[in-house]
């Protein structure tokens, strides 16, 4: 079929072969997975690789009927519309498959046993780029979780093999914290969704850098961001993390500090220690998804160990953004003592 595009990715050892029917969805896949692009020739294909199909259809009536009578609703994300771009979705568990129905926008089907996954989008050319990436992200997260790599809604940086995770919902100050630390020599592990995995040495943070999105206000706070792109139809400014500060990290890092930022209207930032219970609840809120029970049990145990074994602090982030790296160094010294 003309217009089909095939790409291969290596997500920390998880081989994924993506076939797109061209157009905007293919751009979204490439943008989200750009850090994992595998340039090696694919030959006749790798039988152990996940096969992912991305398809666009003109209207919701053309979506395939994926769910059987045996399907069980795992959870529903209501249509919140906080920033005007969110849509609701329902996640179903259906005889070993995960089915995600995204309002009237699309459908994701993941079948771990067969190593294959599909994403269908209804008229994606009419959506914003962030929304398209959001749909592809739902699929990618499910594939990764099935492979023992758990995405976390956080920013993460690395220095000398040690990782700092900056955890919080949108607007909590993740991007500002990330830029501030990158300017001070920390490398970017991820702007929005690092991966947590289990190893013999304990939990590790794996890079998933995509694009650093920032508000005009955040961009103004930092120098050297003159070439930040603002594209037509997109609400946020963005840059590639390798274009700023110390660039991106390429290897797994040991988590050493969990930071929970909150932007406040104070001139001076302030720090307080938080309990591991608080940390675990936040980690669950920002990363835990219960679809497959065995997968969920592994993730829960991993996040509990991450919360227990890592220093943690809440940062009330004032307007003295340049002080964050010093605060982080102080917290790391305290943790090491």
């Amino acid at each position, binding site marked *: 079929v003309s217009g089909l595009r095939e790409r291969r990715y290596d997500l920390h050892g998880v081989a994924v072969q993506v076939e797109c029917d061209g157009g905007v969805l293919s751009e979204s896949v490439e943008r989200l997975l750009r850090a994992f692009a595998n340039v090696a020739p694919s030959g006749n294909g790798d039988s152990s690789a996940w096969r992912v199909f991305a398809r666009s259809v003109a209207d919701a009536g053309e979506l395939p009927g994926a769910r059987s009578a045996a399907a069980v609703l795992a959870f529903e994300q209501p249509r919140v519309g906080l920033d005007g771009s969110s849509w609701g979705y329902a996640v179903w568990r259906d005889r070993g498959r995960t089915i995600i129905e995204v309002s009237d926008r699309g459908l994701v089907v993941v079948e771990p046993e067969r190593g294959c996954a599909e994403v269908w989008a209804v008229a994606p050319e009419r959506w914003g780029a962030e929304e398209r990436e959001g749909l592809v992200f739902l699929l990618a997260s499910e594939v990764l979780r099935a492979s023992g790599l758990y995405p976390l809604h956080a920013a993460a940086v690395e220095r000398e093999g040690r990782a700092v995770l900056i955890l919080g919902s949108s607007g909590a100050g993740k991007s500002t914290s990330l830029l501030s630390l990158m300017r001070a020599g920390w490398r970017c592990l991820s702007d929005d969704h690092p991966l947590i995995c289990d190893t013999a040495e304990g939990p590790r943070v794996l890079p998933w850098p995509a694009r650093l999105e920032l508000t005009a206000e955040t961009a103004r706070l930092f120098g050297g961001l003159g070439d930040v792109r603002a594209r037509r139809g997109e609400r946020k400014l963005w840059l590639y993390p390798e274009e700023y500060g110390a660039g991106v990290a390429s290897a797994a890092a040991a988590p050493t500090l969990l930071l929970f930022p909150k932007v406040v*209207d104070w001139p001076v930032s302030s720090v307080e220690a938080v309990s*591991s*219970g608080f940390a675990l*609840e*936040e980690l*669950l809120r920002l990363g*835990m998804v*219960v679809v497959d029970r065995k997968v*969920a049990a592994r993730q829960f145990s991993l996040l509990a160990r991450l919360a*227990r074994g890592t220093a943690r602090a809440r940062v009330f982030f004032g307007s003295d953004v340049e002080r964050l790296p010093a605060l982080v160094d102080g917290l790391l010294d305290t943790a090491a003592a």
Partner: protein
Amino acid sequence: MMTGPLIGRELRPAVGSDAFEGPLARPGAGSKELRALAAEQLAVMGGDRGGAAGVGTDGVRWALSAEVLEAPVDDELVLLNLTAGRYFGVNESGSAIWGLLRTGCSAADAAAELCARFDVDAVRARADVDRFVGRLASAGLIRRCAQAERPGRPR
């Protein structure tokens, strides 16, 4: 004698620990401002006053749901209900009660044990344990044992 409730920071069914998403009080804020902020937050949280009275009647034994995962964190406990996909933070005293329920204690046994462990009034302890047990049950984390069933944690 403890004057406050035994379970200070109770089982919180709110998803996410950081329920307070409103503005923080300024350092040095006056009492009027603090009261206004508190009233605003209570309005946001409204509805979750919880507590099913009279659930933990004497002799009733409880079985912990097989669908619940638990993670002790310091003196506290985080529970994840796999069926509902919801999680719960439990404070130190709640976690002590959970520990007693998991060994097969009734609410009355648990209250008596807490009175022995902590300096707490028996009536207050029983009322707090009943309320806590009621909330655990309504969150699907425990259920009444059938007659032939073994109470506590399923093996």
